Protein backbone atom coordinates (compact mmCIF):
# COMPACT_ATOMS: atom_id res chain seq x y z
CA UNK A 1 0.00 0.00 0.00
CA UNK A 2 1.29 3.44 -0.89
CA UNK A 3 1.68 5.90 1.97
CA UNK A 4 -0.26 9.12 1.40
CA UNK A 5 1.72 12.36 1.34
CA UNK A 6 1.79 12.98 5.08
CA UNK A 7 4.05 16.00 5.56
CA UNK A 8 1.86 18.58 7.32
CA UNK A 9 -0.64 15.97 8.52
CA UNK A 10 -0.93 15.61 12.30
CA UNK A 11 1.24 12.69 13.41
CA UNK A 12 -1.63 11.15 15.38
CA UNK A 13 -3.78 11.12 12.22
CA UNK A 14 -0.98 9.24 10.49
CA UNK A 15 -0.82 6.70 13.32
CA UNK A 16 -4.57 6.15 13.00
CA UNK A 17 -4.18 5.66 9.26
CA UNK A 18 -1.42 3.11 9.92
CA UNK A 19 -3.51 1.30 12.53
CA UNK A 20 -6.31 1.02 10.00
CA UNK A 21 -4.22 0.05 7.00
CA UNK A 22 -1.03 -1.71 8.10
CA UNK A 23 -0.57 -5.04 9.85
CA UNK A 24 1.48 -4.85 13.04
CA UNK A 25 5.00 -6.26 12.90
CA UNK A 26 6.19 -8.07 16.03
CA UNK A 27 9.94 -7.60 16.03
CA UNK A 28 12.14 -10.33 17.47
CA UNK A 29 14.65 -7.70 18.52
CA UNK A 30 14.89 -6.49 22.08
CA UNK A 31 17.15 -3.76 23.44
CA UNK A 32 18.59 -4.56 26.84
CA UNK A 33 20.18 -1.68 28.71
CA UNK A 34 21.34 -0.66 32.16
CA UNK A 35 21.12 2.97 33.16
CA UNK A 36 21.88 2.47 36.85
CA UNK A 37 24.24 0.04 38.56
CA UNK A 38 21.68 -0.38 41.33
CA UNK A 39 18.86 -1.54 39.07
CA UNK A 40 18.26 -4.61 36.97
CA UNK A 41 18.48 -4.46 33.19
CA UNK A 42 15.62 -2.77 31.36
CA UNK A 43 14.15 -4.40 28.24
CA UNK A 44 12.89 -2.15 25.47
CA UNK A 45 10.17 -3.89 23.47
CA UNK A 46 9.51 -2.34 20.03
CA UNK A 47 5.85 -1.64 19.42
CA UNK A 48 4.34 -3.68 16.55
CA UNK A 49 2.28 -0.79 15.12
CA UNK A 50 5.21 1.58 15.36
CA UNK A 51 7.44 -0.97 13.62
CA UNK A 52 4.89 -1.25 10.81
CA UNK A 53 5.09 2.54 10.37
CA UNK A 54 8.89 2.45 10.32
CA UNK A 55 9.00 -0.29 7.69
CA UNK A 56 6.32 1.41 5.60
CA UNK A 57 8.05 4.80 5.44
CA UNK A 58 6.60 8.27 5.02
CA UNK A 59 4.87 8.28 8.44
CA UNK A 60 7.34 8.90 11.26
CA UNK A 61 9.24 12.17 11.76
CA UNK A 62 13.05 12.19 11.90
CA UNK A 63 14.38 11.16 15.32
CA UNK A 64 15.99 14.59 15.72
CA UNK A 65 12.48 16.01 16.18
CA UNK A 66 12.12 14.00 19.37
CA UNK A 67 15.46 15.28 20.63
CA UNK A 68 14.24 18.85 20.15
CA UNK A 69 11.06 18.13 22.10
CA UNK A 70 13.08 16.40 24.82
CA UNK A 71 15.27 19.50 25.11
CA UNK A 72 12.16 21.63 25.55
CA UNK A 73 10.77 19.33 28.23
CA UNK A 74 14.08 19.34 30.09
CA UNK A 75 13.89 23.10 30.64
CA UNK A 76 13.11 23.93 34.29
CA UNK A 77 10.27 26.25 33.30
CA UNK A 78 8.65 23.75 30.91
CA UNK A 79 4.87 23.77 31.09
CA UNK A 80 3.63 22.75 27.65
CA UNK A 81 5.08 21.79 24.31
CA UNK A 82 4.95 24.73 21.92
CA UNK A 83 6.86 23.06 19.08
CA UNK A 84 4.60 20.07 18.46
CA UNK A 85 4.44 21.24 14.87
CA UNK A 86 7.88 19.69 14.42
CA UNK A 87 6.22 16.28 14.68
CA UNK A 88 3.65 17.14 12.05
CA UNK A 89 5.40 19.44 9.60
CA UNK A 90 8.89 17.95 9.31
CA UNK A 91 9.33 15.73 6.26
CA UNK A 92 8.70 12.11 7.35
CA UNK A 93 11.53 9.59 7.12
CA UNK A 94 11.68 7.07 4.31
CA UNK A 95 11.11 3.33 4.83
CA UNK A 96 13.63 1.72 7.16
CA UNK A 97 14.88 -1.82 7.49
CA UNK A 98 14.03 -3.49 10.78
CA UNK A 99 17.61 -2.99 11.93
CA UNK A 100 17.53 0.72 11.05
CA UNK A 101 14.22 1.01 12.88
CA UNK A 102 15.76 -0.47 16.02
CA UNK A 103 18.62 2.05 15.82
CA UNK A 104 16.06 4.86 15.43
CA UNK A 105 14.08 3.53 18.39
CA UNK A 106 17.19 3.37 20.58
CA UNK A 107 17.93 7.00 19.77
CA UNK A 108 14.32 7.94 20.50
CA UNK A 109 13.41 5.92 23.58
CA UNK A 110 16.64 4.93 25.38
CA UNK A 111 18.36 7.50 27.60
CA UNK A 112 21.00 9.37 25.59
CA UNK A 113 23.67 8.76 28.22
CA UNK A 114 23.21 5.04 27.61
CA UNK A 115 23.31 4.85 23.83
CA UNK A 116 25.86 7.63 23.23
CA UNK A 117 28.28 5.96 25.62
CA UNK A 118 27.17 2.34 25.49
CA UNK A 119 30.60 0.75 25.36
CA UNK A 120 32.81 2.94 27.51
CA UNK A 121 32.81 1.07 30.83
CA UNK A 122 33.96 -2.33 31.99
CA UNK A 123 31.10 -3.94 30.12
CA UNK A 124 28.50 -2.75 27.60
CA UNK A 125 25.57 -0.79 29.00
CA UNK A 126 23.35 -1.73 26.08
CA UNK A 127 22.86 -4.82 23.93
CA UNK A 128 20.54 -5.58 21.03
CA UNK A 129 19.46 -9.21 21.14
CA UNK A 130 16.70 -11.48 19.95
CA UNK A 131 13.75 -12.22 22.20
CA UNK A 132 14.72 -15.87 22.54
CA UNK A 133 18.08 -14.82 23.99
CA UNK A 134 16.32 -13.40 27.05
CA UNK A 135 15.56 -15.72 29.95
CA UNK A 136 12.52 -17.81 29.03
CA UNK A 137 10.69 -17.18 32.29
CA UNK A 138 10.24 -14.11 34.47
CA UNK A 139 11.73 -15.83 37.50
CA UNK A 140 14.51 -13.69 38.97
CA UNK A 141 13.47 -10.82 36.67
CA UNK A 142 14.75 -8.28 39.18
CA UNK A 143 18.23 -9.81 38.99
CA UNK A 144 18.61 -9.67 35.21
CA UNK A 145 21.89 -8.02 34.21
CA UNK A 146 23.91 -7.80 31.01
CA UNK A 147 26.57 -10.50 31.15
CA UNK A 148 30.03 -9.27 32.07
CA UNK A 149 31.51 -11.85 29.72
CA UNK A 150 29.82 -10.40 26.68
CA UNK A 151 32.29 -9.55 23.93
CA UNK A 152 31.53 -6.28 22.16
CA UNK A 153 33.83 -6.24 19.15
CA UNK A 154 32.44 -6.36 15.64
CA UNK A 155 32.77 -10.15 15.45
CA UNK A 156 29.89 -10.56 17.88
CA UNK A 157 27.34 -9.91 15.22
CA UNK A 158 28.89 -12.50 12.91
Amino acid sequence: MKTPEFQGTHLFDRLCWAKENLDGVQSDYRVVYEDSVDECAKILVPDPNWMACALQGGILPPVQVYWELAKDEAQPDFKKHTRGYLLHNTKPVEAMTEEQAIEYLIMKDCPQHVWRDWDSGNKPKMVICRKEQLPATREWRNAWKISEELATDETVAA
Partner: protein
Amino acid sequence: MALGKIKADTLEHSTAGALDTQFVVSGGTLHYVNYDAISQATDDSLNQSSLTDVSTGEYYSTFTNAMDSATNKAHWASCLNSTDNGANDRSGAIRAGVHACIGMNDNHRALSASEVSFASYFGSFGSGDGALDDLSMVCCMTKGTLA
Protein backbone atom coordinates in the same frame (compact mmCIF):
# COMPACT_ATOMS: atom_id res chain seq x y z
CA MET B 1 -39.54 9.42 14.57
CA ALA B 2 -36.51 7.88 12.95
CA LEU B 3 -33.12 8.91 14.31
CA GLY B 4 -31.22 11.24 12.03
CA LYS B 5 -27.74 10.48 10.80
CA ILE B 6 -24.94 12.89 9.98
CA LYS B 7 -22.09 11.54 7.91
CA ALA B 8 -18.87 13.53 7.93
CA ASP B 9 -15.20 12.65 7.92
CA THR B 10 -14.02 15.99 9.25
CA LEU B 11 -15.25 18.67 11.63
CA GLU B 12 -13.70 22.05 10.95
CA HIS B 13 -13.60 25.05 13.29
CA SER B 14 -13.38 28.53 11.80
CA THR B 15 -10.07 29.26 13.53
CA ALA B 16 -8.97 26.27 15.61
CA GLY B 17 -8.37 23.73 12.86
CA ALA B 18 -10.05 20.52 11.79
CA LEU B 19 -10.72 17.23 13.51
CA ASP B 20 -11.11 13.88 11.83
CA THR B 21 -14.38 12.42 13.13
CA GLN B 22 -12.86 8.97 13.50
CA PHE B 23 -11.42 10.28 16.79
CA VAL B 24 -14.84 11.37 17.96
CA VAL B 25 -16.16 7.94 17.10
CA SER B 26 -13.31 6.20 18.91
CA GLY B 27 -13.88 8.25 22.06
CA GLY B 28 -10.80 10.38 21.93
CA THR B 29 -8.37 7.83 23.34
CA LEU B 30 -4.94 9.13 22.44
CA HIS B 31 -2.81 6.21 23.55
CA TYR B 32 -3.27 2.69 24.79
CA VAL B 33 -1.21 -0.42 25.30
CA ASN B 34 -2.02 -4.01 26.18
CA TYR B 35 1.23 -5.64 27.30
CA ASP B 36 1.69 -9.36 27.96
CA ALA B 37 4.43 -9.44 30.57
CA ILE B 38 4.61 -13.22 30.53
CA SER B 39 5.41 -13.51 26.82
CA GLN B 40 7.11 -10.08 26.90
CA ALA B 41 5.29 -8.64 23.91
CA THR B 42 2.81 -5.85 23.18
CA ASP B 43 -0.48 -7.45 22.12
CA ASP B 44 -2.18 -4.25 20.99
CA SER B 45 -1.52 -0.53 21.09
CA LEU B 46 -2.06 2.93 19.67
CA ASN B 47 0.45 5.78 19.69
CA GLN B 48 3.19 3.78 21.40
CA SER B 49 6.72 3.52 19.99
CA SER B 50 8.05 1.11 22.59
CA LEU B 51 7.33 -0.39 25.96
CA THR B 52 10.16 -0.62 28.46
CA ASP B 53 9.98 -3.58 30.79
CA VAL B 54 11.69 -2.19 33.88
CA SER B 55 11.41 -5.02 36.39
CA THR B 56 8.79 -7.39 37.79
CA GLY B 57 5.41 -5.69 37.32
CA GLU B 58 6.87 -2.32 36.31
CA TYR B 59 6.75 -0.78 32.83
CA TYR B 60 6.67 2.45 30.93
CA SER B 61 5.14 3.16 27.56
CA THR B 62 6.69 5.82 25.32
CA PHE B 63 4.41 7.81 23.02
CA THR B 64 5.01 8.26 19.29
CA ASN B 65 3.05 11.52 19.38
CA ALA B 66 3.80 13.15 22.73
CA MET B 67 1.16 14.78 24.89
CA ASP B 68 1.39 18.54 25.22
CA SER B 69 2.39 18.48 28.88
CA ALA B 70 3.45 16.17 31.67
CA THR B 71 0.38 16.84 33.78
CA ASN B 72 -2.54 17.86 31.57
CA LYS B 73 -3.60 14.30 30.82
CA ALA B 74 -5.29 11.37 32.47
CA HIS B 75 -4.38 7.69 32.49
CA TRP B 76 -6.20 4.49 33.33
CA ALA B 77 -4.46 1.22 34.15
CA SER B 78 -5.94 -2.23 34.52
CA CYS B 79 -4.82 -5.82 34.37
CA LEU B 80 -6.04 -9.37 33.82
CA ASN B 81 -6.03 -11.54 36.93
CA SER B 82 -4.02 -14.28 35.25
CA THR B 83 -0.57 -15.31 34.10
CA ASP B 84 -1.94 -17.68 31.44
CA ASN B 85 -4.37 -15.55 29.45
CA GLY B 86 -7.27 -16.21 31.77
CA ALA B 87 -7.07 -20.01 32.02
CA ASN B 88 -6.40 -19.70 35.75
CA ASP B 89 -6.76 -16.91 38.28
CA ARG B 90 -3.59 -15.46 39.66
CA SER B 91 -5.06 -14.08 42.84
CA GLY B 92 -8.24 -15.15 44.61
CA ALA B 93 -10.74 -13.09 46.55
CA ILE B 94 -8.76 -13.49 49.76
CA ARG B 95 -6.08 -11.33 48.14
CA ALA B 96 -8.73 -9.17 46.47
CA GLY B 97 -7.50 -10.08 43.01
CA VAL B 98 -4.93 -7.96 41.25
CA HIS B 99 -4.68 -4.28 40.49
CA ALA B 100 -2.69 -1.86 38.35
CA CYS B 101 -1.80 1.78 38.88
CA ILE B 102 0.04 4.65 37.27
CA GLY B 103 3.63 5.12 38.41
CA MET B 104 6.07 2.55 39.65
CA ASN B 105 6.88 1.19 43.08
CA ASP B 106 10.66 0.76 43.03
CA ASN B 107 11.83 2.70 39.97
CA HIS B 108 10.25 6.12 40.23
CA ARG B 109 10.08 8.26 37.09
CA ALA B 110 9.01 11.86 36.87
CA LEU B 111 5.77 12.59 35.06
CA SER B 112 6.51 13.27 31.41
CA ALA B 113 4.75 14.41 28.25
CA SER B 114 6.42 11.62 26.32
CA GLU B 115 5.68 8.52 28.41
CA VAL B 116 3.55 6.94 31.12
CA SER B 117 4.76 4.47 33.72
CA PHE B 118 2.49 1.86 35.28
CA ALA B 119 2.67 -1.20 37.50
CA SER B 120 0.69 -4.34 38.33
CA TYR B 121 0.34 -6.06 41.72
CA PHE B 122 -1.42 -8.83 43.58
CA GLY B 123 -2.90 -7.92 46.92
CA SER B 124 -1.97 -8.83 50.48
CA PHE B 125 -3.89 -11.10 52.86
CA GLY B 126 -3.72 -12.04 56.54
CA SER B 127 -0.37 -13.79 56.49
CA GLY B 128 1.15 -12.61 53.24
CA ASP B 129 2.19 -9.30 51.73
CA GLY B 130 1.11 -8.12 48.31
CA ALA B 131 3.78 -7.61 45.67
CA LEU B 132 4.52 -6.43 42.17
CA ASP B 133 3.58 -9.13 39.71
CA ASP B 134 3.84 -9.98 36.02
CA LEU B 135 0.50 -10.74 34.37
CA SER B 136 -0.76 -11.81 30.95
CA MET B 137 -2.45 -8.51 30.23
CA VAL B 138 -1.45 -5.19 31.74
CA CYS B 139 -3.20 -2.24 30.10
CA CYS B 140 -2.82 1.51 30.18
CA MET B 141 -4.81 4.19 28.36
CA THR B 142 -4.29 7.95 28.00
CA LYS B 143 -6.57 10.88 27.29
CA GLY B 144 -5.55 14.50 27.16
CA THR B 145 -4.15 16.88 24.57
CA LEU B 146 -1.53 15.99 22.01
CA ALA B 147 1.57 18.06 21.28
